[in-house]
Each structure stands twice: as structure tokens, then as C-alpha cells.
């Protein structure tokens, strides 16, 4: 079954391209400067130049190589993307399964809290968290994960509600399986498909929100290069060097497109026609407007 999934995923050419792009990004982020010949934080006197044979994508106000900084910036972007999606899933899924499985009071309380968080735009929840915790990579992950966990909880709850009374679950119960065993070994594997898609969707959103926070100066503090931070700097030098503000956005957008494509193709491969309905509608746009 798993190979069948993989085969169906690989038949979509564009998602293979997307995957290759992300892997290349990951690799280049690990080779600090050895591809471009410049370290990401090394300054020079060539400030704010456009694309050139030496500095492929130009340089910034301190003469640092933009290409190197973009590659290095992929590190924190991908880390925040994976980290916040993982953390959101780890918090949201158990909550949703518990709410769906036990129903009644647990369900009512959990869903009210979730509705409130969903009523607030992601970037706002993240902003409040960052204001509270201070800017750092870990806090950024905590902030975005907190804003994204409700989506996981909602999906997990819906899935659990759907299969809770099905024969194979009842059969497990009749055979004497405990609640925990049923939830982890029976319910969870059966509701996994939409959650995996949501993981990719969250990762893509996290990249945008993280860039938005960095753009506001509330992200990962400098000198560590981030895409959002580069765009924030670029805004100040728009008149001197327009290229400065273009490339980070292009790389960011391509990364998000790649993740979107993989998400869409996974959804198709798993045959999940599950309509996210209001859940996706409650996030009008990417949440970083």
C-alpha cells in the first residue's frame, strides 16, 4: 500500500520537481558559503550591488553576499516550517482525538477554545506569543505552532468522530482494548491521511508567517540571515538596490509553491477527497496579511 502511495505521488512530475527543489535548498543551506565562495556573514566593500559574476544575486548594505545569505536563510525557514508543523501536530492531534473520542464536556470545552483561536488571524496569535516570549527561533516555532494546532485538532476530531462507532473500533473495545490503546493503535492510523496533508499545509504557512514576523522585526534576531529579515532590510534600500528586495521574495515564494504542490499531490495520492470546508475557509489567505 505504501509503495502504491509513493508511486501515485511520483507520477505527478511537478511534485517531484518540487521535492527536488526543496532538497536542493536544504543541501545548499548546509554548505555555508562553499557554493558561492562567501560566508553568509562575511562583509565586504561591495555594498548594494546588483547581480554580478562575483555576487550572483548581488550584495546587501554591508557588502554581504545575497546568494549566500539566501541559502543560509533557508536553514531557519525550513527549521521553523518543520518545527512548527511538528509541534502543532503534537499538540493538536492528541487534543482532537481526545475531544472526538470522549465527546461531551471534553469536546465542548476543547472546541470552544479552538474556535476562539481560529477566530484570530494566525499572524496575530503569533505576534502576541512573540510579544510575550521575545524573539528567537524556538519562540517563533512555539508561536506559529500555537496558532496552527487548532487546525490539527479540528481535523483529528472530525476523523475520530467519524470512525468512533465503526465496527472495527467497537470490535477492539469488545476484545478488551483500553481507551488509550484504541486511540493510538486503531483511531490514529485511520485518520492519518488528512493530518499528513495538513502537516505540509502548515509548514508552507509557517514559512510565510515566520517571514512576516521577521519582516516586522519580531523574528529571529540578526545577524543570522532570514528571508523575512532580508526583505525588511531591503525595504530601507529600495531606491539604491531594487534587486535586494526581489530575490528573497522569489526564493520564499518558490519554496511555498513547492510545499503547496507536494501537499496537493499527497492529498490526491491518498485519495483524500475530504473537504476541508469551513476549516480552510477560516484561513482566508495565508494568514500573514
Amino acid at each position, binding site marked *: 500500500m505504501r509503495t502504491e502511495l509513493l508511486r501515485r505521488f511520483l507520477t505527478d512530475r511537478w511534485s517531484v520537481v518540487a521535492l527536488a527543489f526543496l532538497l536542493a535548498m536544504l543541501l545548499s543551506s548546509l554548505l555555508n558559503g562553499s557554493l558561492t565562495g562567501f560566508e553568509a556573514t562575511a562583509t565586504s566593500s561591495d555594498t548594494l550591488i546588483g547581480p554580478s559574476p562575483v555576487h550572483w544575486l548581488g550584495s546587501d548594505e554591508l557588502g554581504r553576499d545575497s546568494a549566500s545569505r539566501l541559502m543560509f536563510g533557508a536553514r531557519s525557514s525550513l527549521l521553523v516550517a518543520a518545527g512548527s508543523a511538528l509541534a502543532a501536530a503534537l499538540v493538536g492531534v492528541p487534543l482532537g482525538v481526545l475531544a472526538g473520542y470522549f465527546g461531551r464536556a471534553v469536546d465542548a470545552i476543547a472546541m470552544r477554545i479552538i474556535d476562539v483561536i481560529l*477566530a484570530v488571524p494566525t499572524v*496575530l496569535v503569533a505576534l502576541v506569543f512573540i510579544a510575550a516570549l521575545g524573539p528567537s527561533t524556538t519562540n517563533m516555532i512555539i508561536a506559529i505552532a500555537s496558532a496552527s494546532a487548532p487546525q490539527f485538532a479540528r481535523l483529528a476530531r472530525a476523523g475520530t468522530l467519524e470512525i468512533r462507532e465503526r465496527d472495527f473500533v467497537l470490535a477492539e473495545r469488545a476484545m478488551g482494548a483500553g481507551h488509550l490503546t484504541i486511540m493510538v493503535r486503531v483511531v490514529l492510523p485511520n485518520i492519518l491521511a488528512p493530518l499528513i496533508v495538513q502537516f505540509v499545509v502548515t509548514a508552507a504557512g509557517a514559512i510565510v508567517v515566520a517571514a512576516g514576523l521577521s*519582516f516586522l522585526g519580531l523574528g529571529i534576531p540578526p545577524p543570522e540571515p532570514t528571508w523575512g529579515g532580508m526583505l525588511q532590510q531591503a525595504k530601507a534600500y*529600495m531606491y539604491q538596490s*531594487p534587486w535586494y528586495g526581489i530575490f528573497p*521574495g522569489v526564493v520564499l*515564494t518558490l519554496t511555498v509553491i513547492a510545499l503547496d504542490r507536494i501537499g496537493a499531490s499527497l492529498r490526491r495520492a491518498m485519495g483524500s477527497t475530504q473537504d476541508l470546508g469551513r476549516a480552510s475557509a477560516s484561513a482566508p*489567505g495565508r494568514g500573514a496579511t
Partner: protein
Amino acid sequence: MRAYVIRRLGQFIPVLLLATIIVWAMLFALPGSPAQVLAGEDATPEQIAAIEARYGLDQPVWLQYLTWLGHLFQGDWGTSLVNGHAVAQLIGDRLPATAQLAVLAMALTLVIAVPLGIAVGLHPRSWYGRLTNGFLATGLAAPTFWIGLLLILLLSVKLNWLPAASRFVPFWESPVGALRHTILPALAIALHASTVTARFVASSLSEVMHRDFIRTARAKGASEGTVLRRHALRNALVPTITVVGLQLGSLLGGAVVTEVVFAYPGLGRLLFTAIDGRDFSLIQGSVLVVIAIFIVLNLLVDVLYAFLDPRIRFD
């Protein structure tokens, strides 16, 4: 229907209360107090204590919360910890600017989204269908603030057509000035938001086109244009209202990042300033307003939806 509206309204107050509790809990769980921020980096403990006493920050958190809530019910939203202005006044001043931006942005969103949605919905495999799909994927992935930056680069820096930083010029005072100052941020939002809306239009349109009543209309000899306008679009646009309403709701709460990019004086930038300066009373007040607006819009959307589509019944 009426029972449904009443029940939804009944949920309004508890949800708002819950929201305030969550925000309070978050803000007070954090290291570093607002008094510390107000007093500055190198304040003596005595100075901090004095400030805490003055703003009631030395009270237990639950007591502070209840006091705040009590004042709120009497119409007193408190004063900004940073500049001493009344919170209600500060928010009230920004609301028109945000409303103007939100309305213009939504209008542009619809203008862009509906034709694109129709193109993809009717002919997804055609060359323009594919092209539009590519645009939609790009627009969805590109963050609004970057789109905004590109628009500034092109229309302000290169062509010098529009001001790079926006002021709030009320539409009723100077329609042209208002457009000049609001169109850039509105366009930045619309280019992103329309991709979501267009996908909704496309998917509901392509679904509707396979229904029996469309075949009936065609069989009766109606032209394709009439089928599209009179039969298909009317039905396809109903679900779109949901997403447009929710988008409007979130925009009315202030487009934080976009407003900061364009230095647009709306609710979003107010909230950003408040969060940046740890202006607790202002954060409380504005978050409350943002959530209230969103919930009200949500309710309106659901009611409108039921009104437009009588098949929908809420139990």
C-alpha cells in the same frame, strides 16, 4: 432560522470572554512586566514598584482582569500605558482607515477573482486556464508584504505614480486622494486574497456546470452566456460569499503586516505598535475588537448563506 441566529448571538459573549481570558493569561504568563518596559532598562526597583502601584499592576492577575472587565462593561476601555490616551479613542480613530482599506481590498479581490475563477472553472485545461492556475499558485504562495514591496518598487520607486507610504485620506473627503493612498496596500492584499477566492469560484462553478438544471437550461436552447450568467454563476457564487465574508472579517481586524509595510495608519498597525511596546491595555482592547469583528462577520456570513440558499437549515 430565528432560533439559530439567537443561539449564535448567545455564543457571542462567552466566546469574547474566553478570548479575553486567553489573551490575559498569555500576556501575564510572560517574563518581564509592563512596568519594567515603562520604567525603562535601568530603572530602580523602587521606580518599577511605583509604576506598578500607579497602574494597579501590583494586584493579583485575576483581580486586574475583573477590574478591567468591570470597567469595560461601563464603557471604559482603559488608557494606553505608553501614551496615556483612551484605548477606545485610539481604536475608534483607526477603524475608519482600516474599514476603507478592507472594503477597497475586497472590491479589488472580487474584480480579480471572479473572472479568473470563471476561466479556470469553465476551461481548466485551456491555455488561459493553465496560465491562470499558475498565477493562482504563485499568488497564494507569495506573501502580501512582498507583493506590497514589489508594488512599491514598481509603482512608486520606478514609475513614481503613487506614494510609497500611505496616509489615511477619508474617501468622503477626497475620493481621488483616498484612492491614491489606499490603492497600493489594497492591491497587495487583493492580489493575494483573490487567489483564494478565485479557487472557490472555480471549484463551485465546475461543480455546478455538471448539474441537471444546467443541462435543462441548455436543452431549452439558452445560449452559453445566459446559462453562465443566469443559472451557473448565481448558484456558484453562493459558497463564495462565505470565503469573501471571512476575508472581509479578517481584513477589518487589521492587516497587520501590510499596514506596517505601507505605514498605513489602521487597526493592524495600532496593534503592532501596542505589541511592540507591550502596551497591555491597548493590546487587550484591540484584540477584543478584532475578535468581535471577526465573530460578527462570521455570523453575518452564516445568516446570509442560509438566506440565499433556503435548502440550508441549521438545527
